[in-house]
């Protein structure tokens, strides 16, 4: 959304966001297949959240990626770089052709995002638990300078086992950072197993509330709900906002959905073809 534009109807915007989400999913799977590396399960669970942000929420200008008053979006789950790069290409930060270079030798598109190489990337992430502290610092900078831009951080759910997130959560509440929003991609699976069978996170919304945040739980694949919710921040003045987006790892591809092995499995040519057929939209 360009700066100063008037928000239109979330229902109407969710239609174009859905198209973008489908293109993100298609392109992320093609990238992972070509690179023989990547994290397709998380790419697919995050696609709708990314599409909602970049079509209807963030105040950004891809032609001016370092505009001082831009909203900051930080992908803390940096391993889902294929989804992020696809989103940034869709948003117009760089040509879609670049996506073919994903993880090739000397490519700008490293397996984890590098802000010094790719326009639109705000933070170099990959090791988990880095995005929220950086986001808290950015939001604090806006408070100190009296600027109106906002900060959004997308974390994984397994990632919340990293203690640094909770250090940042405490500080953000203490500082009253109501210009900071964390979105948790709650797909319930981490690399090896379900989160609740590894080190459980529930009751997750209650935990955020106990840490001083205003938290809401939503369907992370309902674009209209995502857009309305992310536009409604801050949920409470003086408090940072948390959106727990209930998602499915591998969303959109029947044989990947809710399957732990697709955290970082690479689809074969046949699997890719089947996945693209299921996703549809190849003629767009």
């Amino acid at each position, binding site marked *: 959304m360009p700066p100063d534009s008037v928000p239109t109807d979330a229902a109407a915007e969710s239609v174009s966001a859905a198209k973008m989400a489908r293109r993100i999913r298609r392109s992320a799977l093609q990238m992972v297949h070509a690179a023989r590396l990547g994290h397709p399960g998380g790419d697919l669970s995050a696609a709708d959240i990314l599409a909602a942000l970049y079509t209807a929420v963030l105040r950004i200008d891809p032609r001016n990626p370092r505009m001082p008053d831009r909203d900051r979006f930080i992908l803390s789950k940096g391993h889902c770089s294929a989804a992020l790069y696809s989103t940034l290409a869709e948003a117009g930060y760089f040509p879609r052709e670049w996506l073919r270079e994903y993880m090739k030798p000397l490519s700008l598109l490293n397996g984890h995002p590098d802000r010094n190489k790719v326009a639109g990337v705000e*933070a170099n992430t990959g090791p988990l638990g*880095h995005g929220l502290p950086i986001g808290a610092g950015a*939001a604090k*900078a806006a408070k100190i300078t009296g600027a109106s831009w906002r900060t959004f951080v997308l974390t994984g759910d397994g990632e919340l086992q990293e203690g*640094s997130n909770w250090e940042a959560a405490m500080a953000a509440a203490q500082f009253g950072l109501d210009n900071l929003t964390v979105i948790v991609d709650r797909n319930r699976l981490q690399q090896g197993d379900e989160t609740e069978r590894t080190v459980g996170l529930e009751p997750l919304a209650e935990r955020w509330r106990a840490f001083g945040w205003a938290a809401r739980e939503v369907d992370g694949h309902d674009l209209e709900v995502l857009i309305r919710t992310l536009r409604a921040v801050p949920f409470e003045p003086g408090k940072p906002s948390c959106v727990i987006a209930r998602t499915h790892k591998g969303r959109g591809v029947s044989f990947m959905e809710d399957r732990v092995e697709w955290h970082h499995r690479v689809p074969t040519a046949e699997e890719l073809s089947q996945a693209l057929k299921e996703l549809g939209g190849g003629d767009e």
Partner: protein
Amino acid sequence: MSLHDCRKAFSETLVALAEADPRIVAVANDSIGSSNLKEFKKRFPERMVNVGIAEQNMVGVGAGLANGGLIPFVCGASCFLTGRALEQVKVDCGYSRSNVKLCGMSSGVAYGELGPTHHSIEDLAWTRAIANLTVVVPADPAETSSALRAAAAYEGPVFLRLSRMPVPDIHPADYRFEFGRAPWLRRGSDVTLIANGTMVARALEAAALLEADGIKAAVVNMSSVRPLDREAILEAAVAGPILTVEEHTVVGGLGGAVAEVVVQSHPARMRLLGFPGEFAPTGSPEFLFEHFGLNPEGIRRAAAQLVEESARVAHETHPVR
């Protein structure tokens, strides 16, 4: 000879920088007292960010503040700032090339009796291995102040390894620190002592003792550990043996950095003086310096041995007939 705690120069300079530039902010881990930030907090309460006892978050917050256009000076005891938050130092600062100034307070064995948990004698090895990160160890108040100003003016991540140990004035008040430039504090043809931080004054004292022994020792202040002053090192290597002196383990610190240059350019006989790769026993900083030969007498002894050894080897290799 009057001695100074460089934290005074640190805090006065930071306040002066903040007065002139609204982008300067301080970040602390509940260390406002030990980092000498009380005056800063009083003068600029809205620019004092205290994240509580949480170093990983502290460094991440610093990177975020820089992303938002500010110039954060992130202050904490060096042992925790570097050790606890090393991945954030690497990724959020070095790899991201964030404009963050990391200020490691009370480095080395300044915490003495509190023991190895609070000693920070690995921080140079850790930080100087990180690409993009500039690493500086000032030796006195004038250099602390000048290095702080240089860090603020430079766009990129800097680690300032600061101390609370009392040191004398070494440089004149108008001294200008420069990244990658090591001042020669004393000339001498028999051996070069390359030191930084609290060890520079001690190396100078040792050089005076050596003069009485008839040994001419040069002293170089290698405060800029990354980038190094390669020319100064080469000049020393061409002149003769080199003794490095640091308040740090001899594994991977100043001595290691100098040796990396020497062996790849002009091999010279070297000796690395520092903590010998073991955790220190209980004792005050001064006790530990003496215990490990990091006092003027210990430095004198090591330098004299090195000079004697080089003369002997030179004689054995090229005997006078």
